């Protein structure tokens, strides 16, 4: 009974999660070809061991060399890192004051505020990104508003630029930043702040010497929760970004669907994964430290 309970989800994940990665890795080492499916070599099990050896001999790192030679990929990786970093920082700037306000709100407001933060998360991601197209376009509401207030005379181009991508990421990932920060701020011992003020701190000094350091685990968790998915983001750069907005998720998509170069798409996926390993491990360390601190 116990063995059955373990083996069913185990096998499911092995077949539908781990094996597919093996296949991606294999195709990343294969060559592109004009066949269906469009890559060689194909593993031919009917030839037995010699077939396997022939197959093994044809695998090489050619696609990875190709990625280092064509500067499109370098630029795409670097620009994804840059966009994800800046967007994470902006989300923190917007998210922290909201979480701080929620933590200071009266008790009977908090469930409602919580619901208001979570509600957009349940609403379709695509629709939330789509909502900004109408706002940011040349005749959009933001330009209409800015012209009406007299800040600008001509409509500014915002849609299809990196700025629109930043707005999109901040908007869609905001709950992931607010919730962990709120969780740490809510547990914060208020008497510490009183002590700081009794010892002569102003409110702002007390904030920087007590609240900010104690909310660090929440800030770190929130930043990773935004940074990790933002790095491989596809929908936001393709709907809000311009043709010159380079993000690796978009490059992978285009290699696969437009160029039909499966080996290169797979190699791009492998490298993206390698880049993500570092922040994921750091994130898990942070989570573990927090759990240990609570016990």
């Amino acid at each position: 009974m116990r063995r059955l309970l373990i083996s069913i989800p185990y096998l499911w994940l092995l077949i539908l999660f781990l094996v597919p990665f093996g296949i991606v890795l294999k195709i990343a080492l294969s060559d592109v070809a004009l066949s269906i499916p469009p890559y060689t070599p194909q593993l031919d099990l009917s030839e037995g061991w010699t077939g396997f050896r022939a197959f093994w001999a044809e695998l090489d790192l050619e696609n990875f060399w190709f990625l280092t030679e064509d500067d499109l990929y370098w630029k795409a990786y670097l620009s994804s890192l840059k966009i994800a970093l800046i967007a994470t920082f902006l989300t923190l700037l917007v998210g922290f004051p909201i979480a701080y306000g929620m933590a200071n709100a009266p008790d009977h407001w908090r469930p409602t505020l919580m619901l208001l933060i979570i509600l957009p998360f349940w609403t379709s991601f695509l629709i939330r990104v789509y909502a900004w197209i109408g706002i940011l376009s040349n005749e959009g509401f933001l330009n209409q508003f800015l012209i009406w207030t007299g800040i600008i005379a001509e409509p500014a181009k915002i849609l299809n630029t990196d700025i629109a991508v930043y707005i999109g990421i901040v908007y869609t990932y905001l709950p992931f930043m607010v919730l962990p920060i709120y969780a740490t701020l809510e547990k914060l011992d208020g008497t510490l702040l009183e002590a700081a003020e009794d010892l002569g701190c102003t409110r702002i000094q007390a904030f920087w010497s007590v609240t900010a350091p104690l909310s660090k685990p929440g800030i770190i968790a929130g930043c990773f929760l935004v940074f990790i998915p933002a790095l491989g983001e596809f929908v936001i750069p393709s709907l809000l970004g311009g043709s010159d907005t380079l993000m690796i998720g978009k490059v992978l998509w285009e290699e696969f669907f437009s160029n039909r170069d499966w080996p290169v798409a797979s190699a791009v996926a492998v490298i993206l994964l390698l880049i993500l390993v570092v922040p994921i491990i750091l994130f898990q360390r942070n989570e573990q430290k927090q759990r240990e601190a609570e016990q």
Partner: protein
Amino acid sequence: MRRMTSFNVVSLTVGFAFLYIPMLILVIYSFNASKLVTVWGGFSTKWYGELLQNEAFLDAAWVTIKVGLISSTIATILGTMAAFVLVRSGRFFGRTLFSGMIYAPLVMPEVITGLSLLLLFISIGLPRGVMTIVLAHATFSMCYVSVVVSSRMASFDRSLEEAAYDLGCTGWDAFKSVTLPIIAPAVISGWLLAFTLSLDDLVIASFTAGPSSTTLPIKIFSSVRLGVSPEINALSTIIIAIVTVGVITASITSKRAIVKQQREEQMATP
């Protein structure tokens, strides 16, 4: 010592305005009579009428609902099993790999999950369609379900189960009459999460869908690429309305369930 400062009030107001104004504009302009999406041309519900006559959208909506219902049910069963394994099974061969496979899909970029599953389906010769989307969605949502359910199980009082055994229950009876009712709220919210993730997913569905199995997000994405249209605004409004009603109902019922459960637990302890 918690005090609302004026800074707190301003940041909450600005923050929630930022979150809700874009959606509000979307809803208001779905009732716009004009074809131009950013110019108000009077009140009208004609875009809803046109939406309901659009066969392509209705077909896609049906595929999406079908995929969502089947995949979230599979994900809930597998995810609950996985949660039991994580919390109860102690050490077994390959446990680290197992928990790694549960947590990895949560942080995996969707483009990679989609690509790898598609390559799997092609190499085993499975024709792409509703079935492949269901398999893909069940796989990544079961991980979310198992996280939700295992966090509930971690705070589970096992003496209740032991009492059931002492009173003569078999393993299945004890599960059905003690364990399941206690973890039920987590299982239900896991199902809802899996269902929402499935309805919402564009990237993984695009990789794993066949030509005859377009889901609603794929359909929305391809028409949004051509620009803003009032029909999509109407569709978005319907989705926002369903989600809002659903989330508020769920939060009220779960609050009631928690209160009821606490009362029962109080009555049970002398």
